[in-house]
Every structure is written in structure tokens, then in C-alpha cells.
């Protein structure tokens, strides 16, 4: 590995960390799309900053861009408050307009400038090490490392200092207000951090990857845990993993690093989405299927309890009367047999003592509709579940 490669990977990892932290809170606060809006609407800020300073590397550029990110948030909230359109429409209206202004400003005034819309949106990590920071003629490493490193340090400091406040205001705004810390301050603080992170990261990785790095690791972590601290750690780790894997995939394919990092994130998310232990698609579908069979079983037990006559309890009767298919009846009967709730005697089904007890409890549950936890009831009776 050459030093440039190490630097690129370092930048990618730092960006991943810087994005994962605000991203986690954005996802939890149901404001994920705000990051998309910010990432687009920093463009006019950048352009105006460039016109003022005439220098693409000026810190004013970052500041103005971050300010235009915060202005986006304020505009979106203003439109939402007027109640003229639904919440997310406001986001969709504000950022394309601001982005258009940016594009037009560039087209009109900056013909011979290296400010390119493509560069803002897509970024190019491979060039990041060429832009170096010199202090008194000493090469201190790539500039991006310093910029993003500073952002990471600031974000981490703020996170640790205000962790409690962030946590409370994210999950219970009223409580936060009652306890005396203004949700508004925390809200705008978070938005400012998100803006600054977006701006700091975009010229290394591009605006779209910033969005991906904010949302995807947080979403993955959210599918894996319900604990805020664990969620933050998982999000950071997922971000770093995708940064490193993504870099080598890009190296191998000779393609955009930002693109391949996002693609790796996509695959990671797909895996988590499918296989997450209790919230992944497969376990959700499995649980739904099982609950369905259990509800069938309940119906079946009640049916048996209500009918003493043999004709109603014949095994072939299920199909005609409760309108079940063959497979379905077989699953349900098998489950009931396994749990010792029924006995089959010459194709006539009868309830056992245990089955009767279950059916009675079930009726209790249905008629009173009280808070009896049906899951507990099932635990009591089921040896085997559907």
C-alpha cells in the first residue's frame, strides 16, 4: 500500500465516522431526508462563498455552505409551519430550488472555474491526497484529513458532552422541554453538525455518498439493536467497514471510490435487511407466518369446543367448513397433535384436557379483550410453536 492509498482509506474512514453520528440521530428523529436536502442545497452557499473569496480552499466556503444548509432547514420548517403543504413536500420544494440557483450561478458566472456541479455531487476521493496541507513548508498530510478530522473531533466532543440531552430530546421531546433543555437548541445544533459534516465531506466523497453514509449505517444499526449507544457503535463500524471494503472494490474495478463505497453499503444493508435477528425481513415473515398458524389453531380449538356432534369433528370436515386448504388443515392439526391438545380417534377429533383449558382461556381472552398477554398464554401451552 502506498501512502496515498493509506491516506484515502483514512479519509474514507473519518468521513464514515463523521457521518454515522449525526446520521443515527437523523434516522431516529425521522428526518433522514433532511440530509439529502442539505447535501444539495449547500451548492449555492459554496458558489456565493467562492464569488466572495475567489478561493476554492477558503474556510469561508465551508462556513457559508454550512450556513446555507442550516437556512434550508429553517426554510423547510417555515413552510411546514404555514401548513400549506404536507411536511415532506416542503423538503422536496426547497432543495431543488436552491440547487437550481447554485447550478445557474455557476453556469452564469464561473465559466473558467474549477467548480463543477459533477464534482459537488459525486466527489472524487482518489484526488483527495493531492491536495496537501503545508505549514511553514512542511507537508502535514492531505488537507481533507485535517478538515474531516477536525469535524470528527468536534462531533465526538459534542456527542459525549450532550449525549444525555440528545438522547432525551430524540425520544421524548416533551420530557426534554420539561427538564429544561430546549429541544430547539439541540435540534438546530444537530442540523448545524449535519450541515458542517456534509460540507466537510462532500469534496472528498460527494454529496450523495454523504447521504448514504449518514442514513445507511444508521438504518442497519437500527435493525440490529434498540440501544442508542450500541446503535451508534454499530453505525460507525458499518461505515468504516464499507469504507475499507469499498476502497478495495473500487481499486479492483478501477471505478469511483464513492460509488463503490455506496454499493458496499447497499449490500451490507441488504444483508442486514434480510437476516437481522428479530427485525430482518426473513424473521419478520417467519414470525408473521407462525402467528398466522397460531391464530388458525385458536380458531380450530374453539370450533372443536363448540361442537360436540361427531359430524362437525370429522377430519375431512375442516376443509368444507372452516374453508381451509389441505396443507393448511394438516399444519394446524399437526401442531395441535404435537402440543397434545387433540386426539384423533377413527378420524374424529376430540379435545384433550389441555386443549380444553387452552380453548377456555382463549375465549376469555377474546371476550374480555383485556390486557392478558396472549404471548404469555401461548408460552404456557405450546411445547412446539408453529
Amino acid at each position, binding site marked *: 500500500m502506498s501512502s496515498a492509498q493509506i491516506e484515502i482509506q483514512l479519509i474514507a474512514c473519518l468521513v464514515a465516522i463523521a457521518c454515522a453520528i449525526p446520521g443515527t440521530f437523523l*434516522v431516529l428523529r*425521522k*428526518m*433522514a*431526508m433532511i*440530509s*439529502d436536502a442539505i447535501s*444539495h442545497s449547500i451548492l449555492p452557499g459554496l458558489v456565493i462563498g467562492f464569488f466572495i473569496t475567489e478561493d476554492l480552499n477558503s474556510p469561508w466556503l465551508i462556513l457559508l455552505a454550512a450556513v446555507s444548509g442550516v437556512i434550508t432547514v429553517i426554510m423547510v420548517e417555515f*413552510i411546514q409551519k*404555514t401548513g*400549506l*403543504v*404536507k411536511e*415532506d*413536500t416542503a*423538503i*422536496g*420544494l426547497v432543495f*431543488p*430550488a436552491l*440547487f*437550481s*440557483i447554485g447550478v*445557474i450561478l455557476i*453556469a*452564469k458566472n464561473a465559466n473558467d472555474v474549477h467548480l463543477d*456541479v*459533477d464534482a459537488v*455531487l*459525486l466527489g472524487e476521493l482518489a484526488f483527495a491526497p493531492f491536495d496537501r496541507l503545508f505549514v511553514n513548508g512542511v507537508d502535514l498530510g492531505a488537507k481533507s484529513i485535517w478538515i474531516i478530522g477536525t469535524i470528527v473531533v468536534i462531533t465526538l466532543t459534542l456527542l459525549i458532552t450532550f449525549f444525555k440531552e440528545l438522547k432525551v430530546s430524540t425520544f421524548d421531546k416533551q420530557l426534554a422541554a420539561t427538564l429544561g433543555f430546549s429541544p430547539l437548541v439541540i435540534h438546530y445544533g444537530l442540523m448545524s453538525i449535519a450541515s458542517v459534516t456534509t460540507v466537510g465531506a462532500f469534496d472528498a466523497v460527494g454529496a*450523495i*455518498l454523504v*447521504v*448514504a453514509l*449518514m*442514513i*445507511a449505517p*444508521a*438504518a442497519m444499526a*437500527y*435493525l440490529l439493536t434498540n440501544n442508542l449507544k450500541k446503535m451508534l457503535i454499530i453505525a460507525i463500524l458499518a461505515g468504516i467497514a464499507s469504507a475499507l471494503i469499498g476502497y478495495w472494490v*473500487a481499486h479492483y*474495478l*478501477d*471505478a*469511483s471510490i*464513492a*460509488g*463503490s463505497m*455506496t*454499493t458496499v*453499503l*447497499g449490500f451490507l*444493508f441488504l444483508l442486514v*435487511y434480510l437476516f437481522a435477528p428479530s*427485525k*430482518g*425481513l426473513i424473521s*419478520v*415473515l417467519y414470525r408473521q407466518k407462525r402467528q398466522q398458524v397460531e391464530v388458525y389453531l385458536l380458531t380450530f380449538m374453539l370450533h372443536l369446543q363448540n361442537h360436540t356432534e361427531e359430524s362437525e369433528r370429522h377430519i375431512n370436515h375442516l376443509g368444507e367448513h372452516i374453508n381451509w386448504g389441505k396443507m393448511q388443515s394438516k399444519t394446524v392439526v399437526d401442531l395441535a397433535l404435537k402440543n397434545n391438545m387433540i386426539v384423533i380417534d377413527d378420524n374424529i377429533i376430540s379435545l384433550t384436557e389441555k386443549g380444553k383449558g387452552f380453548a377456555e382461556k382463549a375465549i376469555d381472552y377474546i371476550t374480555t379483550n383485556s390486557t392478558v398477554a396472549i404471548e404469555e398464554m401461548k408460552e404456557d401451552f405450546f411445547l412446539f410453536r408453529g
Partner: protein
Amino acid sequence: MEITEYFNLLFTDYTLQTITLGTAVLGALCGMLGSFAVLRKQSLLGDAISHAALPGIALAFLITGSKDSNTLLIGALISGLIGTFWIRGIVKKTHLKSDTALGLILSLFFGFGMLLLTFIQKMPNANQAGLDKYLFGQAATLVSSDVWTMCIIAGLSLLILLVFWKEFKLLLFDADYTKSLGFNVKFLDILITFFIVISIVVGLQTVGVVLMSAMLLAPAAAARQWTNSLSVMVLLAAIFGAFSGVLGTAISASSNNLSTGPVIVLIAAVFVLFSFIFSPKRGLLFREIRYQSNRKDLELHKTLAFMYHIVKTHDNIDHPHAIKILNNFHGFTRKSLQKLESKEYITVNKTMWSLTEKGFDKAANLYNQQEENE
């Protein structure tokens, strides 16, 4: 080129006609279907889908090797649909919220698309020029076959809207009721989403991935301010969309260096801003005016009620009182006295006022809701 010159050229120049017609049809189509997206609270779906279409375009090029816009559009359509249904899957089956799902699909698909595009760029002897026009859109590349595609799709979606008008309307405002009436909600849902995706995909070439969502939203959001009727809203949105298309093309054609997409979006944004402020029923301006006049009325009523309580203690209504005694009462001004006098509720004589018969009746019935509002 001046704007007037543009409109003169419009009647003679074939290319200009094609482009203008294209953006107009696109604007109308997006406005029409955008109304449904906005009302279904799917405003940002357009943003997500337009980004999600990018890998489809790149893959279609990789597989077929052709740059024919219809082939690429089919690829875009497929990946847009995959994105849409994945978003639904995430929202329905996990506890991630719709904003997270949208942001995820948007950024992940777009990133994958970028990976493919840069990969294509570096492929030997692959002439990829023209693919990146889908990023920012280039109305100038519209040819008549593209416009035909747009017209056909616009006609088709208009037909579908007309045929299923009643069902769509029901679905918009009360999905549960629609289901209980026995309509196939799932089918209707997929049908309208499908057409929204198509309209986004056809617009990509003109306004590009980034700005497509605004094409969908802005005309509808503007139209919403002027009416409460769905049919009027759809019609207005289509008109707004078409106008933004034509005006945007005109402005961008009449000056150098202006790409059409951003100009169209800004024109549409101006429509939205104008509607937000000046729409008579919902607009901010008239809302403020109404608010102020209500406040004035209220103050007038307060003054009147205060007078009424003074007058009540006297035998004859028109017994004069000093204006001075009103001084420690808020909401009383010289103007409000004049206003009351002009309504003949009181008569003012130098420094004294007295309530008239009419004013007394009015004040006595002030809190009577049954009374007709004047």
C-alpha cells in the same frame, strides 16, 4: 437571443418546437401525476425514484450497448420500480420509517449507478458520452421520437386517470373505505405508483435526476393552494407544469449557458411562491389580512361590550358618558370610536359618547351565536 425572438423562432424552428413541446408535455404530465403523489404524502418518492433509476440506465447500456433513449428508459423504469417496491418493503416489514427508506434507496441506488457509470467510462472503446446527460438533464437533446414517447405516456396516463378517476379519488382520501367497498386497493395503488414512476423516468432526460422531484412536486403544490377540488387541482397542476416547461425553455434558450432543467425548476418554484402568498383562500397574504381584520373586529366588540356594561347601569340608553372613562381599557383607540360611530352603534359628542339603540342591541347579542354574522 431575446425572449420575443424566441417566440418568433418558435413558429419556424423545428428543433425549438420539438424541445418546447417536449418540456410542455413533460410539465403537464408531471403536474397531473404529481398531484396524486403530493396528496398521497409521497412527495419525496419522486426524488428517490429519480435517483434509483440511474443504475438501470447504466445497466441497460452495459447489457445492450445501445444509447437509444427508449432502451435506457426501460432500464430506468425497471430499476425505478425495484427501488419503489423495496421502499415499500422496508416501510411495511421493518420498523424503519419512510424517510429512512427513501433516503436509503435514493443514496444506495445512486451510488451504485455512479459506480457503474465510472466503470463504463473506463471501459475500452465504450463511447459513454450521453449517459451523464441523465444526471443533470439536457432538454436540447430531445428529439421528436422522445417527444412522441412523452405524448404517448401522457395520453395513456390521462386515459387511466379518466377510467379510474372515481377509484383513485376514493383511494386518496379514504383508503380503508375504498377497501371496504370492495375495490382492489392493491391494484389501484400499484397502478398509480407505476404511472408516477413512468412519468419520472421520462423526465430524467430533460431535467435530470436531481431536479426531477421538483418537477413532480412544485406544480402540484402550487395548484393545491388554489382549490379544494381534486379535478381542478390536477388540471391546474398540469397547466402550471406546462407553463413552467415552456417558460423555462424560453428563458434558457434566450440566454447563454443556462441549462433548461434548473430554469424550469426555478420557474415552477416561482409559481409555488406566488401561490403560497397570493392564493385567496389559503395564501399567506390573505391569511394575514383576515387575521388582522378579525383582530380589529374583536377589539371593536370588546370596546362595545365594555360600553354596554357601563350603559346597562343607567336607565336610558343614550345617557352620555365621558370618553375618559374608556381610557384605562385596552383596545380602545380614537379610530375604533370612529368606526363604532360610522356603524351607528354610538354617537360621539365632543368628549362624551352615548350608545344608540342599535348599538345596545348589538352589544346585548354580541355573544349570541345564533345571530346572523354581518
